[in-house]
């Protein structure tokens, strides 16, 4: 049993972890940068330690500062949240050598999942359907050209250590392959200090579908259904839901079976998300594993009744999945999440600043995860997430009705937010019909980037 957990994060996810700790009766230590002195995670943790200036590199990303804070506060475990150090295998390793339990997969597993082509190979072995592509790193333009001809254009070049769209290039014909490969390698080298790039078949305007996995320290793995995250703008998810309108019970069961095998084989512990693309024919293709809790985890919580962050903590304390999960896990109802960002709903320009008016929606079927409050500041140093608005209903229709209602009653003044964009999306006939894909925003013109 942990006595005290240090939360190496900020914003809504730090508050989310504090909630889980309070529910378990575990004390909490918040760390904060000078920009977050008045933030709610700092206020609601049992202790709070300033670890550096506003810039993440010198605070939330600074491993010695975070570890020192855990040491001076006598924490026994560290929850990394998402982003920042959450998928940093070195950090997980330093935690272990400092006698702190890292609440997440082992450093080896994080490292494996971080090397995209290695993760691909591991999934491939267990029978998880993967995208046609290179077995490993592309060694030369010649090898790349040969492979692309075999797979068929268009293809996608991706950084092995990548994320966030950097080091990625779409190649539509053989003529441009060599130069785009060089660009991708240079960008990857600059962004991740590793220029390795691999190739995958490009699926045009796919659905983005991901499966939630939990593994314990006793070799047990469970899959808690899928989430659909196809409403994206430039690879940034805007709306997620569970279950997906495109996944049949048979498909869900088959993929879950494969994933259980694959995750048992790699010795996966804690929560993880397996991302897939679905092509127009309804086939799933593995792309990557996110070895952490995901922003959009609440929609899975709503339809399964499982508190995923509580589950992460109990797994880290050595508990078995059979004691953590309900006896008969099942999906019930439908949940949708809108990410309310501090950005202009049309230009998408970030809009940090002070919130001068604030009203959170409530009522039946509405959950809000946020660290924002009236008179509080959305700092310009970090991501633009203001709140996660989650609507639950006995079916998708009810969830949509409740989400619309909640969006109508969500007031944020003083900064721009994506609320108006969410309203437009929730009204669109294709969204209502569940006809989703990652091209939705561009196709519908709802996110026209005016000026």
């Amino acid at each position, binding site marked *: 049993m942990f006595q005290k957990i240090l939360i190496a994060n900020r914003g809504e996810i730090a508050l989310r972890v504090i909630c889980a700790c309070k529910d378990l009766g575990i004390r909490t230590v918040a760390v904060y940068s*000078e*920009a977050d002195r008045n933030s709610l995670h700092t206020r609601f943790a049992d202790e709070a330690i*300033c670890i550096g200036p506003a810039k993440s590199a010198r605070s939330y990303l600074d491993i010695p500062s975070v570890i020192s804070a855990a040491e001076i506060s006598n924490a026994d475990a560290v929850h990394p949240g998402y982003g920042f150090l959450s998928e940093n295998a070195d950090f997980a390793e330093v935690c272990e050598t*400092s006698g702190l339990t890292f609440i997440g997969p082992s450093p080896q597993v994080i490292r494996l999942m971080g090397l995209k082509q290695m993760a691909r190979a591991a999934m491939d072995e267990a029978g998880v359907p993967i995208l046609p592509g290179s077995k490993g790193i592309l060694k030369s333009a010649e090898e790349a050209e040969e492979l692309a001809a075999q797979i068929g254009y268009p293809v996608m070049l991706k950084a092995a250590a990548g994320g966030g769209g950097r080091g990625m290039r779409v190649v539509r014909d053989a003529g441009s392959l060599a130069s785009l490969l060089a660009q991708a390698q240079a960008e990857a080298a600059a962004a991740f200090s590793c220029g390795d790039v691999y190739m995958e078949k490009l699926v045009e305007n796919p659905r983005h579908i991901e499966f939630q996995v939990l593994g314990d320290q006793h070799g047990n793995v469970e899959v808690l259904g899928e989430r659909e995250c196809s409403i994206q703008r430039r690879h940034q998810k805007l709306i997620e839901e569970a279950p997906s309108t495109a996944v049949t019970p048979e498909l869900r069961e088959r993929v879950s079976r494969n994933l259980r095998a694959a995750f048992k084989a790699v010795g996966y512990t804690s929560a993880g998300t397996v991302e897939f693309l679905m092509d127009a024919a309804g086939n799933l293709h593995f792309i990557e594993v996110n070895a952490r809790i995901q922003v959009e985890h609440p929609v899975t919580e709503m339809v399964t009744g499982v508190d995923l962050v509580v589950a992460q903590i109990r797994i880290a304390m050595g508990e078995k999945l059979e004691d953590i999960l309900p006896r008969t896990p099942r999906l019930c109802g439908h949940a949708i999440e809108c990410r309310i960002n501090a950005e202009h709903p049309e230009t998408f320009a970030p809009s940090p600043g002070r919130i001068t008016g604030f009203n959170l929606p409530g009522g039946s079927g509405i959950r809000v995860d946020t660290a924002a409050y009236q*008179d509080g500041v959305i700092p310009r140093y970090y991501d633009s997430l203001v709140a996660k608005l989650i609507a639950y209903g006995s079916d998708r229709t009810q969830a949509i009705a409740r989400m619309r209602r909640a969006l109508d009653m969500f007031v944020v003044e003083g900064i721009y937010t994506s609320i108006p964009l969410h309203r437009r999306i929730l009204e669109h006939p294709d969204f209502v019909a569940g006809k989703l894909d990652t091209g939705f925003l561009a196709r519908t013109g709802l996110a026209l980037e005016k000026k």
Partner: protein
Amino acid sequence: MTNEEIKELLRIFNESGVGELELQRGKDRLRVRKAGEGVSPAAFAGPPPAPVTIPSALAAPAAAAEPEPAKPAESARADVKSPIVGTFYDAPSPGAAPFVKVGDKVEVGQVLCIIESMKLMNEIEAEVAGMIAAKLVENGQPVEYGQALFAVQPR
């Protein structure tokens, strides 16, 4: 406007309940604002206090929500702040004499204390020359980033 007049006006202002006052008397001009007015001072400011539900507690002046609050002009003292999170030691080893004590004169670059962080001993040096006016942390106490360790009266 004499200081006495201003003092009297501030008293009147404070008792009045108004948020802002601007006064011109001949060539003199006075402008005052209640603590927190205009920006509406971080309702939830300050490190984890118990949730406040008592009206009177609301009058407390609150720190600005943005970093680097302006230092009070009242003092010329310079604080030596901890550049890292860790444990404060005032001497090079247990039982040894402290690096400095209150009243000592210090030079730029002189070691004032050690902050231990991840088993590493980090020496903290004076950045201004002057006299140690106060020691603000006890030996062995944990300190956070930016915490004041010593007050130095600059020369």
